[in-house]
C-alpha cells in the first residue's frame, strides 16, 4: 500500500532569482529511479495550505533527492522557510517519467525552459551513463534566473538563451536549433506550454514532453490536471497529467 512519508531536509538554498534547490533524504529515495517523476509535497503543518505542490525530481544521488522550485505564490514561498533538519511530508515519487532505458549510442536533444529545466538534469545523467550523446538547450527569462549551467556543461554541448539577451543567446530556445550538431535522433522537452509548442512545431524527430499543470490530489482522482488527447477519436478524450503523465509522447496530447 502507498503512503505519504516524512523526508528530512538537508539543504534548502536559493540558486537563482526566486529559485530554490531543496535536498531531501528518506527511505523512499530508493524508489526514485525514473527521471521525470514528481514528488507531491505538503506545505506546512496546519491546514492553511490545503494542496500539495508537485515538484519534479532534479537529481538523485545515493540517499538524497534534489528538487528545484520557483516561488510562484504563497505556498512555494512558505516552502523556502524549511531549514536543515525539518521534515516535509512527501507523497511520491508519482507519475510516469521519461522513457529512457532503451536509448543507447544516440544523439539526444534536451530542451528546457525555466522551471522546466530541473527534470532534464536527472534524465541527462541517465542518458549519458547509457552511452548517449546529449545536447542541451536551456531557456531563461534573464541572467539572474539562470541555474545549473555548470551541471549541464559536464554532460555535453550546452546552449543557453535568455528572453532579454542578458545571458547567452538572446531569444527563444528554438533560435539555436540550427547550431546543434546533426543528426539528432530524439528529443525531450519540459517548460512553459508556449515553449513546448514552439519546440514540437519545430522538430520532426520523435520526442517526449513533460507537462506542468495545477494539481489537486496528484494521484488521479480529482481530475484537476487534465489535458485533451490529440486524437479526436481517443476513447477517453483526455489524459491526467499526474497519473498518465507528466511525460507524454509529443503527439499524444493537445497543447
Amino acid at each position, binding site marked *: 500500500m502507498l503512503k505519504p512519508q516524512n523526508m528530512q531536509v538537508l539543504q534548502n538554498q536559493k540558486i537563482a532569482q526566486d529559485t530554490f534547490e531543496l535536498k531531501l533524504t528518506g527511505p523512499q529515495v530508493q524508489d526514485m529511479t525514473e527521471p521525470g517523476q514528481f514528488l507531491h509535497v505538503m506545505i506546512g503543518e496546519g*491546514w492553511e495550505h490545503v494542496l500539495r505542490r508537485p515538484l519534479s525530481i532534479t537529481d538523485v544521488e545515493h540517499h538524497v533527492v534534489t528538487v528545484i522550485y520557483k516561488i510562484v505564490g504563497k505556498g512555494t514561498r512558505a516552502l523556502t522557510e524549511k531549514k536543515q533538519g525539518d521534515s516535509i511530508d512527501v507523497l511520491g515519487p508519482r507519475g510516469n517519467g521519461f522513457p529512457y532505458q532503451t536509448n543507447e549510442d544516440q544523439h539526444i536533444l534536451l530542451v528546457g525552459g525555466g522551471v522546466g529545466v530541473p527534470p532534464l538534469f536527472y534524465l541527462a545523467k541517465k542518458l549519458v551513463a547509457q552511452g548517449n550523446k546529449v545536447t542541451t538547450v536551456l531557456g531563461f527569462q534573464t541572467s539572474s534566473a539562470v541555474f545549473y549551467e555548470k551541471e549541464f556543461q559536464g554532460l555535453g554541448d550546452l546552449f543557453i538563451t535568455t528572453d532579454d539577451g542578458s545571458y547567452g543567446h538572446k531569444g527563444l530556445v528554438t533560435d539555436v536549433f540550427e547550431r546543434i550538431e546533426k543528426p539528432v535522433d530524439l528529443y525531450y522537452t519540459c517548460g512553459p506550454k508556449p515553449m513546448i509548442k514552439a519546440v514540437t512545431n519545430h522538430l520532426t524527430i520523435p520526442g517526449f514532453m513533460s507537462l506542468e*499543470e495545477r494539481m489537486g490530489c496528484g494521484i*488521479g482522482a480529482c481530475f484537476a490536471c487534465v489535458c485533451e488527447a490529440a486524437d479526436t477519436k481517443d476513447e477517453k478524450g483526455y489524459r491526467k497529467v499526474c497519473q498518465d503523465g507528466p511525460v507524454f509522447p509529443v503527439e499524444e496530447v493537445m497543447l
Partner: protein
Amino acid sequence: MDLSVKLPGLTLKNPIMPASGCFGFGREFSEFYDLDKLGAIVIKAATKERRYGNQTPRVAETSSGMLNAIGLQNPGVDKIISQELPFLERFDTPVIANVAGSTVEEYIEVASKLSETPGVHALELNISCPNVKEGGIQFGTDPELAATLTRSVKRASNLPVYVKLSPNTSDIKRMALSVEEAGADGLSMINTLVGMQLNLQKGDPLLSNKTGGLSGPAIKPVAIRMIYEVSQVVNIPIIGMGGVTCAEDVLEFLLAGASAVAVGTANFRNPLICPEIIEELPQTLSNYGYNSLEECVGRSWKHVEEQSSVSRT
C-alpha cells in the same frame, strides 16, 4: 464504541465517507488503504453522456481552502456502470452514486440506469454544482425546480435519494423542506460556495472558468451553521460535509445535526485521511464525554431545548 449508522437504504459501518468528486471512482485510493474501512463510498458525478469538463486551470489554493471548477468531467453513466462500478463490488462498503444533468430528463435517465445497477445502494442528487453552465445549480437555487426534480427522480428510482444542497442560496431551510416534501430520503450538505481568485500578474481570474467552488476548512463554519438550521426543521437525516479534516470536525458536524459525515478536500492533502479519522473517532468522542454517535447528533440544539424545558418546569 459502536460506530455503525443506519440511514435510509444504507447500513454504514461508521459515519465516514469520502465526498463526491474528491475520490474519483475509488480506484486510486484503494492503493492507499482497504476501502472496506469506509462507511460508504460516494462516487464522482455521472451524467448521461461523457463530459470533458472545463479548461485548466481547474484548481487554485486559497487560505485554508481551495477553489475548483472541474466541470463534472466523467465518462458518462454507461461507462461508469460498465467500467468503474464493477471495481467497487469487491468491497463490503455501500456505494452512493452522484447523479447530475442539464435537464430533468437527463437526471431521470441517469438515475434509472444507476438504480438498475447492482452495487449501487443510494443516489445523491447533485443539484448544486456551481461549475457547469447548464444544470446543477439552477435546480439547487429554486425550491420549486428542486422539488420537481426530486419527485421525478424518486418516481424513476427504487433507491433512496439524498439531495445535495447548495449553500449558494438565501434560504437553505426552504430548499431543504421543499425537497423533503417532494420525497427526498436524506440530504447532503453542503456543496461548495461560489468564489473567485485573481491572478495578480495578469489581473484576470485564475481559473479558466473564472469562478469556482470553494471548499476546505475555510467553509466549515458555513456548513455547521446550515446543518444546525436545517436539521431542526426536517425529519430526514443529513450527511454533513464542508471542510472536515479530523475526528473533532466530525464530532462538530454530528453535534450540528448530521448523522454521517463526508470528507472532501482533505483527501487531496492526505489520501489516508478517511481511515485515520475513523480510527480516531471513538477516542475523540469519549474524550469529550460521549458514549455513542446518537447522543451527539443534533445535540447543539436538542441540548438547548432540553435545558429550556427544564427551566420552564
